[in-house]
């Protein structure tokens, strides 16, 4: 199969859906050509579909998200882009009090079929306001769905599912994965929301990892298998809401050990949710305490050396795995 970038896979999904459904349109900052968004994801789309359907907005996050909500209520399927996930804080009322709750408050009369794409994560020396992993905020709000693809294949299939989904979906891309390449079919396909993917089979320890931590963990686990004979099973939930608890719990029932790896800060993070689920549903299967490997509870600093120190790296993940299997 041909290999394309994570960025290109996302673009392909957007393009397929815009061709397929005239109500799909894009709205966000600097999406039009020649720029195509800060990370170049929408490059070419305004030229192909016109600036009516690839809409360049003012720097107004509340307006971008609110506009998407209003258009969705009036029958459209907008895909909003928030340039950096951090900036969503400036439009948070629209996400939390509006998008997430309108269907419920209406007694099920209306849906809010919007996708909010945003680039999260650290790695570009962009410091504290352009580097956060904020997924836990959204996981905590009933009414939202939260998707974090870790491969080009998943990005394309999950975004297609998100655009076709009747509910508001926060689609968190990782800015350091846009150049990652992987096999992606040319035709359209859907990966249902709520289906985890076992990225590596193993018997000794389960590792639940999200987003950029998935390729990082996979590089490490192959090495551990080759060098130390430790066969880790790597589960990527892919969607945090809805969460495929079954795949995670069944994996731990097989391996009896769990390490959770995410880039977001540890305190109040998604890892705590996974640990709690497994602690209840697979309690008798566990042979070791559940460990979390996450960023330290600090803002993200500017200096690359400091930034790298905070985010889980191979050394810290390996230490946790060895401690768990010891």
């Amino acid at each position, binding site marked *: 199969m041909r290999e394309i970038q994570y960025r290109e896979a996302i673009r392909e999904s957007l393009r397929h859906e815009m061709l397929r459904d005239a109500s799909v*349109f894009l709205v966000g900052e600097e999406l039009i050509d020649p720029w195509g968004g800060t990370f170049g994801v929408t490059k070419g789309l305004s030229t192909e579909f016109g600036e*009516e359907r690839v*809409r360049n*907005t*003012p720097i*107004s*996050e*509340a*307006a971008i*998200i*609110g*506009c*998407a*909500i*209003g*258009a*969705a*209520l*009036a*029958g*459209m399927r*907008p895909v909003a882009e928030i340039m950096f996930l951090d900036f969503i804080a400036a439009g948070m*009322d*629209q996400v939390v*009090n*509006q998008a997430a709750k*309108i*269907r*419920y*408050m*209406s*007694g*099920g*009369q*209306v*849906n809010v079929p919007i996708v909010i794409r945003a680039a999260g994560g650290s790695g570009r020396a962009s410091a504290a306001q352009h580097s956060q992993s904020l997924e836990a905020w959204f996981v905590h709000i*009933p*009414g939202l*769905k939260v998707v974090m693809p870790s491969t080009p294949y998943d990005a394309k299939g999950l975004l297609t599912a998100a655009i076709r*989904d*009747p*509910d508001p979906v926060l689609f968190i891309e990782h800015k350091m994965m846009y150049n990652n390449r992987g096999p992606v079919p040319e035709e359209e396909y859907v990966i*249902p*929301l*709520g*289906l985890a993917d076992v990225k590596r089979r193993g018997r000794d320890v389960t590792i639940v990892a999200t987003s950029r931590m998935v390729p990082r963990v996979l590089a490490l686990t192959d090495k551990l298998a080759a060098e130390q004979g430790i066969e880790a099973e790597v589960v990527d939930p892919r969607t945090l809401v*809805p*969460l*495929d*608890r*079954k795949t995670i719990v069944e994996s731990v029932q097989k391996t009896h050990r769990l390490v959770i790896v995410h880039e977001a800060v540890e305190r109040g993070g998604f890892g705590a949710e996974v640990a709690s689920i497994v602690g209840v549903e697979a309690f008798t299967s566990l042979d070791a305490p559940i460990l979390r490997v996450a960023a330290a509870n600090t803002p993200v600093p500017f200096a690359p050396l400091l930034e790298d120190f905070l985010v889980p790296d191979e050394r810290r993940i390996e230490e946790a795995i060895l401690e768990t299997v010891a």
Partner: protein
Amino acid sequence: MASTEVSDPSPGTPTVDVPGPDMLLRMYETMANIRSFEERLVELFNSGQIGGVLHVCIGEEACAAGVCANLRTNDYLLTSHRGHGHVLAKGASMDRMMAELFARETGLCRARGGSMHIIDRSVGILGANGIVAAGVPIAAGAGLAAQMRGEGQVVVCFLGDGAMNHGAFHEGMNLASVWNLPIVYVCENNLYAQFTPQRLHAKSEDLVKRAVAYDIPGIQADGQDVLAVYEVASRAVERARAGGGPTLIELKTYRYTGHAISNPICAIGRPDEEVDAWKLRDPLRVFERYLIDQGICSADDLAAVRREAAARVDTAVEFAESSPMPAAETALEDVYAAWPEGVPL
């Protein structure tokens, strides 16, 4: 003051025909319905028959009636926490509105929304809103959808004077302006943002001046005179429908009650004389005088309309009281429109 154009960059403002007798009477009925409905809400709340948080618009009825008389069923409406009047004027069922406030399953939102969050898709009501100014950007989105489809729908978004100081107001107005969206923003300036008098929250008394910053028409009108409201709204709605873009209307009006029914004080530093002075220009009384003076109706005709309104409210209360409560476990419904089987919520 009938109406004042603060800023109107578009030449050739459409002229408005004076509404015919049927339309005049319909607007009066709407105002009488809203007044009866909300006066009953106050009684029901004070006697403990309904609960929650209620923000009534008693004293402001001409704004809802005069604006919504210009709308079609498929036009869109967004409003604020003080939206009962707008919702009724846009055509929502009074029975189901009352049932919503009685927290019954037959309510417009199956008792999930309540007073501040009424949505009635069947008549284009996209949402009242418990968050001040949040409807302003949402209205922009509805206007964008209308513009992209090109079917001539318009959006009306009501907001209060307090909303004019919120960031969402600016972001939404600017977007509506730069994209020339078919929206009429109606600021009901009742002089108080919750309890805070306008002199403490905005330097100018004339909030409509902000239209200048967005380079869109801004029109101010007497919110106690339903004909003045009708006229400015009619021009703004027609302009939007014809592709002329958004308008900001400021209606000078007044609420007789406190911010919410339960509030012990009406506002900070609000003198009784001010309330009395505004009551002399009560929107129903002002309109009644006009209708009688013009020979359109007699005082008896109008009294009959008010009796019918009261009877309609009686019917709505009976409907609500005889409706079932929601089943407790239905609280888990409708969080999502689609959810994978076997995955816990």
